[in-house]
């Protein structure tokens, strides 16, 4: 049985006291780890330095990075394992987003169809008067 391709969001925090090029290297190694694990990286977003809500490994701040990836769950587990052993990454979270995206698309579609319906019903109810205004 082929493994399903799923979309995930992986957010991780890099320790803030590294120099710029060092953090770049950390992010690129995470990306390459992902690709070797069998995950395609779709988007990389640096969210910048943020104050942490609580101390993590005695750090008050952190550099947030957000990856949008696609791949099977087993590959994501491998990526998580690598993140765990990557020393400069102090925290990470991976969230599956494909179902949520599907739900949002559905909601949006329903809402759009309702918006389209509403003017039509208003026209039919009011009669011929608003029809020239719209046309």
């Amino acid at each position, binding site marked *: 049985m082929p493994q399903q391709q799923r979309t995930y969001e992986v*957010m991780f*925090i890099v320790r803030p006291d590294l120099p710029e090029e060092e953090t770049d290297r950390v992010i690129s190694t995470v990306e390459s780890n992902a690709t070797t694990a069998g995950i395609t990286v779709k988007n990389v977003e640096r969210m910048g330095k*943020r104050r*942490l*809500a*609580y101390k*993590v490994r005695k750090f008050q701040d*952190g550099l*947030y990075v*957000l990856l949008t990836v696609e791949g099977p769950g087993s590959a994501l587990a491998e990526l998580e394992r690598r993140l765990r052993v990557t020393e400069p990454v102090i*925290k*990470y*979270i991976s*969230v599956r987003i494909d179902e*949520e995206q599907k739900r*949002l698309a559905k*909601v*949006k579609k329903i*809402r759009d169809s309702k918006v389209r319906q509403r003017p039509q019903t208003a026209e039919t109810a009011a009669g011929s008067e608003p029809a020239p205004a719209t046309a």
Partner: protein
Amino acid sequence: MADEEKKEVTTSSEAPSATPAAPAATTPAAHAGPGPRPYGRGPGGPGRRPGGPGGRPGGRGEGGPRKFFRRKKVCKFCVEKIDSINYKDVRLLGQFVAERGKIVPRRLTGVCTPHQRRLTAAIKQARNIALLPFAARY
């Protein structure tokens, strides 16, 4: 004129004939015990105060035992049509987190149950990645 009056008379005569029918229907229901709901809509449930018109919850507030006015709480997500409750949206989630970092209950915020469920999940994810505190420092 005369026709109109006649019409009124006929309608008024119809109305009383309808009202005695309703209590007649309620009396057997009252004997039965649990089951006055389908019948008791018009003349109120037996043993209830006559002040409540129809016994409908969330009426105009008149006749209820509560004297002070309370604004009806509405779900922010339903009203503003916020579809996605994401763990990254700290400003949104922060509105539903108390000072000490607790999730504010639904009864205080008025958020509807499906949205509160999503909200809770999002807040917990945000806590996990240190966007929100588990417990704020005093």
